[in-house]
């Protein structure tokens, strides 16, 4: 029990010590290679003057918007594709073709089409989540045991009941898993997106601080990204334990 907390803490302290030693030994200027104390100090500074909060909220807003859009469009579409063979046959090759294109490859088009500001960033987040959600939902729906559909036919389910009583509950565990996966991807992509088209967000903070040669601020950006990433993953993990998803862990 204690080991779970003490061991990582020890590792963390050792890493910080090594970091500190390296900084003192190589003699670079504090601006280029700040030590842990400077970094922590800068974290405090950016927290107290409100900068960090502002950028974090901006990033979270974009991730949330893009992620929700992708989920709201991708999951229902995935269900349709998983249920209706004709539509799948028509669209699947196109989807498989677009899927491996990195969301970052969309940057030029996103900027040209949507200008600067939030829209291109949200679009990039959307692209990074959409196909994964679409395809994993599709596969999940296709792999529902045919027995359940026979039960549905036998008990005279309406089309609506088949969706609400069979399809949706059956795929919730898989969907929760892929939501967890895609939110992590979205969080990766938002940083890159904010380096090109916007004036706020953690990606912008990092880029702007580099231009100002404030590597300590760059590190603050990175530390925040790491911490929020952990938090997001924790939230998604909790989501997997909600009532309607739990049965999937028992399969």
């Amino acid at each position, binding site marked *: 029990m204690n080991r779970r907390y003490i061991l990582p803490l020890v590792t963390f302290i050792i890493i910080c010590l090594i970091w500190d030693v390296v900084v003192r030994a190589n003699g670079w200027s504090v601006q280029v290679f700040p030590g842990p104390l400077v970094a922590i100090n800068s974290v405090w500074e950016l927290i107290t003057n409100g900068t960090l909060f502002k950028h974090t909220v901006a990033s979270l807003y974009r991730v949330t918007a893009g992620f929700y859009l992708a989920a709201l469009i991708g999951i229902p579409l995935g269900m349709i594709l998983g249920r209706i063979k004709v539509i799948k046959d028509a669209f699947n090759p196109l989807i498989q073709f677009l899927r491996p294109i990195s969301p970052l490859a969309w940057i030029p088009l996103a900027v040209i089409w949507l200008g600067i500001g939030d829209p291109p960033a949200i679009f990039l987040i959307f692209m990074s989540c959409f196909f994964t959600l679409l395809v994993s939902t599709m596969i999940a729906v296709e792999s529902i045991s045919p*027995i*359940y559909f*026979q*039960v549905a*036919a*036998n*008990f*005279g389910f309406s089309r609506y009941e088949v969706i609400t*009583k*069979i399809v949706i*509950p*059956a795929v*919730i565990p898989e969907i929760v898993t892929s939501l967890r996966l895609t939110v992590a991807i979205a969080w990766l992509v938002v940083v890159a997106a904010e380096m090109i088209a916007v004036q706020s967000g953690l990606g912008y903070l990092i880029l702007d601080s580099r231009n100002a040669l404030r590597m300590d601020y760059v590190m603050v950006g990175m530390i925040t990204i790491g911490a929020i990433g952990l938090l997001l993953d924790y939230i998604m993990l909790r989501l997997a334990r909600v009532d*309607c998803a739990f*049965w999937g862990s*028992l*399969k």
Partner: protein
Amino acid sequence: MAHIKIENLNKRYINRRKTRRDDDNPETKVGAEVVVLQDINLEFEDGEMVCILGSSGCGKSTMLRMLAGFDRPTSGRILIDGEQVKGPSSNYIYVFQHNGLLPWMTIWQNVELGVRHIKDEEERGDVIQEYIDMVELTGFEDHHIYQLSGGMRRRAELARALAVEPDMLIMDEPFTGLDFLTRMKMREEVVNMHEYIGKTIVMVTHDIDDALVMGDRIVLMAGTPAEVKVSQKILDVPHPRNLEKEPTLCNLREELYLKLGVSHVA
């Protein structure tokens, strides 16, 4: 309620799978037709408990699926009360060989699927409770499937099927995978339930004793393609039956074993 007539029933499947072993055997070629059932003629009376026996792979499940409307005959007809089976219907409930309960629902919600048409909530609850009590799952209403043993799952599925009050129950090997004692109890329960509700039950089993203890009629299918070798009504042997003490059953048992290709029975 459910008088069943099967006339000249044929079922052929197109073989879609490649089999390496027998390239010369026309039956295993890709695209070749496999005849599973040939010229099946059967008639079950209303309210009969029909037990279908047959070696594994001879087409018993295929026939039950067509009876339930999940599958179409290649030729021939299945008439239930004079009407041809066109598709699945809640008049004929199929109890699945493997688990047909929905794992994301509780026992209560699963049984509720059968009584969705009852609008009044209180009345519906009473009916659900009645059937859960009937299969002795009282107290397990809010349990999920994974929390139940194999025998309890079968009983829950039975409750769900009975709650629909179908004209006919179709059961595919309902006792497979149950331990010996549970199996004995389930036999008794199904027989009692049948005597109580009097609905037609068509059941596949691979256990001859199951059929002899439970059936009003015993059907034996064998051969490839499968044909009906025996369709015999068991008259005047009341439940509970003791196989050893009933000479008619003993003789029938020996005959069934012989027809299945086993000549010495202990």
